[in-house]
Every structure is written in C-alpha cells, then in structure tokens.
C-alpha cells in the first residue's frame, strides 16, 4: 500500500512494488492525460511533477512516490486554465496532441524556476520531450507567452474569452 498526494488529493494504491508511477496513474487511478510513449524516459510523454520537479513517470517506481506530491496535467490549472494552457491554445500548438501533456508539464516546471526563459534555456528544459508532429516552434512561442502572462499576473483576463472563437 502506497500513499501519496495526487493533484492535492490524498490517494492510496495497492499495487506491485516497482510498478512505474505511469501505470499507477493510468491503470489504477484512471488519470489518462499522462501518456505512455517509450517506457524508457526517452520521449517525455509521461512527464509529471514530483514535489514540483519534472520526472518521467514511466521510470519512477511507485515506492519512490510514497508520501510525496504528484501533479499531472489534470491538476496543473483549475479547469485547464493554467497560463501555459491558455498560451498553448492561443498559439494553437498541438497537432496530434499526444505528447502535449508532457510538453506542458515540462514547460510548467521551467517557468516555475525561470519565468522569462530564452530559446536556449527553453531548449535545455524541453529537449527531453519529443514532438513527432514537429510543433516545437509553437511550443517555444507558447512558453514565452505564458511566461509573460504569469509575470503580468493577468492570466484570468487573457483567457476570459473563449479562445476558439478568436482568430489566430
């Protein structure tokens, strides 16, 4: 039995020791926003935060999570309203979308420590996340936009209108 905090709620799971966090999230806790891509920490699709730091959930055994805080894409912003999510919509980043939860979680960890990153800093923080559709330039743009929204502290205003109705 392992206890930890998932998106600020305490959870308890009874799984085999050594089960990667990814499969606890997906198969036991039905949090499907975190994706499997490679199983070997090569692609970043399963990126979540462990006590605020980005980790690849596919290689983190569940014992390592005991009594710690896990944040997934579902818990990043209330109702999907994190400035990064608003910026992602504004830049219309995703294509297939499968890698984007992981991209956003890596980006959130970056902005938490560096709210005004430049391209080389973005590249260092994001190079563990593969986007096979090639949305990288829009990812860079959205990260800078989100940083600006966070610094300006007006993310609520920026996302008040339904962004789907505004033209790019």
């Amino acid at each position, binding site marked *: 039995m392992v206890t930890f905090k998932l998106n600020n709620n305490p959870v308890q799971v009874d799984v085999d020791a050594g089960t990667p966090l990814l499969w606890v999230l997906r198969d036991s806790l039905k949090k499907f926003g975190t994706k499997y*891509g490679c199983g070997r920490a090569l692609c970043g699709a399963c990126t979540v935060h462990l006590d605020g730091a980005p980790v690849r959930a596919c290689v983190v055994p569940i014992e390592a999570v005991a009594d710690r805080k896990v944040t997934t894409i579902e818990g990043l912003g209330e109702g999907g309203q994190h400035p990064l999510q608003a910026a992602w919509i504004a830049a219309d980043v995703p294509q297939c*979308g499968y890698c984007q939860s992981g991209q956003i979680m890596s980006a959130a960890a970056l902005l938490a420590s560096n709210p005004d990153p430049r391209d080389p800093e973005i590249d260092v923080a994001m190079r563990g996340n593969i986007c096979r*559709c090639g949305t990288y330039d829009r990812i860079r743009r959205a990260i800078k936009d989100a940083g600006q929204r966070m610094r300006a502290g007006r993310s609520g205003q920026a996302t008040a209108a339904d962004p789907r109705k505004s033209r790019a």
Partner: protein
Amino acid sequence: MTLNRRQFLRSSGAVALTVAIAAPWRAGNASTSATANAYLRFDASNRITAILPTSEMGQGTHTGQLMILGEELGVEPSSIAVELPIRPSEPYRLFFGQMRSVGSYGIRAWHDPLRKAAAQARSVLLLAASDRWNVPLQELDAVDGHVVHASTNRRLAFGELVEAALALPLPADPPLRPASERRVTGRALRRVDTPAKVDGTAVFGTDVDVPEMLHGAVRMNPVFGGAVSRYDVDSVADLPGVEQVVPVPNGVVVVADTWWRAKQAADALDIEFGETPNDALDSTRLSDAMREGFDGEVPAVIRRGDAESGLQDASRKIEATYEVPFLTHICMEPIVCTAHTRKDHVELWMPTQGQDIIRMTVERVLGFGNEQMTLHTTYLGGGFGRKTHGEIAEQAMLASRAVGRPVKVMWSREDDIQQGYYRPIMMARLRASLNQQGRITAMHAQLSGPQMGQTFEHITVQNNNDMFSVASLIDQPYTENFALDHRHLDVPMPLSPWRAVSSSQNGYFLEAFLDELAHAANQDPVAFRRAHYANHPRHLAVLNRVAEMARWDRPAPAGRYRGVAVVASYGSVVAQVVTLRMVADQPTVEQVHVAIDCGRAINPDSVEAQMRGSVIEGLAVALRHEVPIADGRAQRSNFHDYAPLRIDELPEIEVGIVDTGAPLGGVGEPGIPPVAPALVNAIFQATGERIRRLPLSRARG
C-alpha cells in the same frame, strides 16, 4: 442567394433525402434530433452535429471540414459538435470505395461533398423560414445559426425551423454560396480540438476505458513472417494479475488486469519461435538484390515521347543511382485497440485511419458483417499511414473472445518499431541527356524494389504501374521524352504507406538528380529549374516564391550553403530551400524556406503547421532514420536509435502560401518530399559530395 422558391423547387426536383442514410445515430428520438443528410444532424435545442468522414490524427482536418460546413451553413465552425460514423458506409467512402483517412484527402476530396451537404441543409432551413414568414426565399440568409430576414429584422434560430425544414425534400443540387460571401474559409482559425489536447481530456486510443476491461501486451516473433512454435502458459500463470495467454497470428497476447502486469508477463513468458525462411534476411543482401534488379531489361511502366533515342544521341549523358531505406512511423501513440467480442457482435474502440480495413478484418477474423461491428474511432496520436492496418484489431478481438471481456491490447514502443509496416526500400537509377543549351532532352528512370501495391488485395498493380511506387516520378515536369521502369522485389516484411508514400523517395531521387544535371549544365539550380518550368506554372510560382524568401538572388552568407528542391504531390506543389553550415564535418540546418501551392488554403494556419511539421520530420528522416534488417529482425528499438528531431535541433522555418488558382491540393503529405533533396543539394554545395543514399548517417558515417 438569388434563387426564388419556384426555381428552388424545380432544381430540387423529385429527389428526396438522397443523401440520407439509415445510420444508427438516427435511432435516437427523432422529435429532438434529426438527420439532414449523412454529415449533419440538428436538434431542437440548436445543437448541430457533424458526422465527419475522416479521422483526426493531427492534420487539423476536423477543423477544416467544420469550416467548410460552417461557412456554407451559416454557423460558427467551432460551435458544431463532431462525431465519426460508428461503421463505414457509402457516404464516407472516397478512397477506392473505402472509408480511409489517407492520401491527404481530408480537405481536397471532402470539400465539395461537405459543402453540398451544408448547402442542402441551409436550403431547406431557408425554405421553412420562407413558408413560416411568407416572404420570398431570396430575401433570406443563414447567419450565425439563424435564418435572417434583413428588411424586417426578423431572426429564427435553426432549432426552431428544423422540424419543418427536414420534412422538406433535400435538393439534389442546392445553390452554393458564392466566393464573395466567404468569411470563414481562407482565414486562419484555431483548431477545435486544441482545448481538449492541452488539459488531458482528449481521448486517444490508449485512453479508452470500458467496464470490466482487461489489458493485453504482446509477444511476437521478432523475425518477419515467422510463427510461434511453442509456449509455456505455466511460466506466467502464477504472476500477479495474469488472466490468460491467447495465441494470435505470429505471437501471443498476454491478458492481465493492468497493462504493466500484462507486459511483465509477456516479457517473462517462456516462448519459442522456431526457424523461419527469413532468418538470414538482411539489408545488405536486399541492397544487392535491388542493384541486381537493374541487370537485363527492367520491366517498363510507361514510355512518353522517345527517351531512348534521345539518350543515345545526346552529347552529354548523366547517370546516378540512389537508395532509400526502410522507414517506420513511430506514431507517438503506440499501436492500440480495445475490443469486446460477443457471440454475434463486436465493439471496437481504436485510433484508425482505415475503418473499412477494420471492417474487412472483422469479417475475416470473426466472420461478422458490417452491421455486427460497432467501431468507435478515437483521436489518433499520429497516423502517418501506420494506423490503416488491422492486425491490432485482430489481436484485441481474439483476446476478448478468449477471455469473454473487453480487452485493450497495446504494443510497447519496441513492438511498434520492430513489428512495423515499413515504408519500402527502393533503389533508383536515373539517366538523362542534356543539349548544348543545357536543357534536359530525355530521361530514363528505373526503380528496383518492392511494389507495395502487390501487398494490397483491393488495389492492383496494372501493367507494372504501381501507384504506391511511382508518384512524383511518373509525372516529372522536366522532359517530354521520358521512360520509367520498375523491377519488383519481394520482401517478407509488411509494407505500408508512410507519410507521402512513394513521393517521399521519388522526390529525393528526382530532385537530387536535377541538382546533378544543373551542375553538369553549369547552371544555377534555381535558374536551371526555371528554364524547364515553362509549361508548369505552379512549379514556377512556388520556386520563385521560395527563391525570393531565401534571397536566392544574393550569394549565401559566408559559411552557409543552400540547396533547393521542388516536388509536386497530392495535388500540391512545394518548393523548399535548405540553408546549412558544416560543424565538425556534420551539417547543421539553420533555415528552411517553404513555399506551397495547395490551391485555396482553407485554413492557412493548418497549412503552415503541416509544412513546419513536415520539414522537421523530413530532416530527421534524411539525417538519420532507417530500419536496417539483420538476421530477419528490425535493428531499431526505441527513440534512442530511431530519434525524431528534438527542440534544440530546430531550424528556423518560414512558410509561404502561393495561390495560383489551382484546385484544392493536399497538405498533410506534400511538405515531406522536397526536404531530403534540398538538404543533400545543400551538402553538395558545402562539401562537393553527392549523397546518393539515405540516411546521411549511413551515407557519410
């Protein structure tokens, strides 16, 4: 709208509901929900649902299709809900009589049918309002989900008119909005699927979760064409959560209560595969076999003009041989399907590009007809041609039948790469002659390698012409004297369309060769192409645009080298200029300029996104992607040895959209073919090397 009611009724004739189909979603309460035709459903609460014929795998076609529907109907595209039909049927079939999301067809082939479907619905809505208000039809318009009578300032929401409107016969040939009324298509619109893809709620095939569901992981013969000779169920029977080991063609599915447990058990399973005829297969021998394929007379595909005497008489002849490797698709979402097989019905949830392929698989494996299948198409985490196949559905159906519960079977990344359906290997020998003015007078292209069409039952290779092998070569724009041959080579591994299919290799063969010809003619590669595009205005337009974007008329900056390529595919023409520098003898791509003529760009933002993504994929492929075969097995396994471009390798990419008034062209694939030749042509400028074999990592070491 200029048609009055009398003309309208005449034009509609006696044809009633010709497009409407007996679709299962009509089983709902007809008083609250009504089907206008196969693609649109209305309900009294003003909700409009589109039943779209293609899968969304990242290309943005759902948004583009909603723009087409919304514009014609007079509603905000993003207000229309999206469904896919739960089994293939005639209205959704456009590819060789099949429902498939392939061939960059999503917009170019579906524009007219969807526009007409929306025009039909608008016509009867206007007619119903015309009756209700007793005003002439031509005074009405449909705007923002309402029928509007401007002179009396009256409005009625579609929902209030739906019952009366859908009781009217649908016109077979409804009036279409003129171009002057376009306010939606042609302008960038944000994609409707983005919000669900940034908060984790989008449901991909991997995210299907149905009651009582179990999970399956696979163990398959690593040698292509091999089977299972023996396995020991007892070796995993005591592992936690394991339910059953189910035999499937060339392997087993291990079923357990979670995927992780199923995977652990599949890896632990004591299994033997035995010998196969392909145990010694390897890439070197396949290359030798392709090269030997040029010996003797190579079977002809087409002859145009007189290539042979042109080549014999010419003063200058150039010849070069090129080769490309097997490629795999590495969709970020792995291969997955959830099935619930019952006695006389099967329900499937999966990310598929090939709904009719799944129907055929169901029929073959279970003996069930189309009506005994319910197929829920999820979002696809990438498709690229890989998700047209039925093997994963077969595995899931068999596993579910064996355990009597729904089973989600998912492949690992290693399974995905090593059990792929590959873009075929191919070798091309090109010969051409130049006259004194440096014009190409004749060309003879010979292909040696698999004819993928021979592996598809429903699409035959006719007169040695395989549409999956010759695109972007058979229609080369450079000379009237052209001959094309193809020697088929049988290979035991499954083959598949891969983004841009044969244009992906033929664009490289042809445009790398063109650069060699330009050099032999002592001409600038852009000027050389221009001189040959007199009868190809679209080629010329994109070449001129890309040359302008890349400032080709000025010398490249010091230490920078440029290459150009122009390839027509899928109804579009794309020109690219790659600018690179050499760092420690390796190319670093700094800039890629792209110009595309895809006809009218329905959603320019999606066109731009597809061009950028194509450049990024095309570079990874040209630089380092290949699946070598040794001992009958694929020699790649995961993203460390089959590595997509990462964000720190991203070049600056600029995209220009050119509209020459051509019909709608495809967008998902045409950006791929020019990348590799533009890259190798730039490397020639930098180093004087001709890269005649991809990927670069193999050609240059």
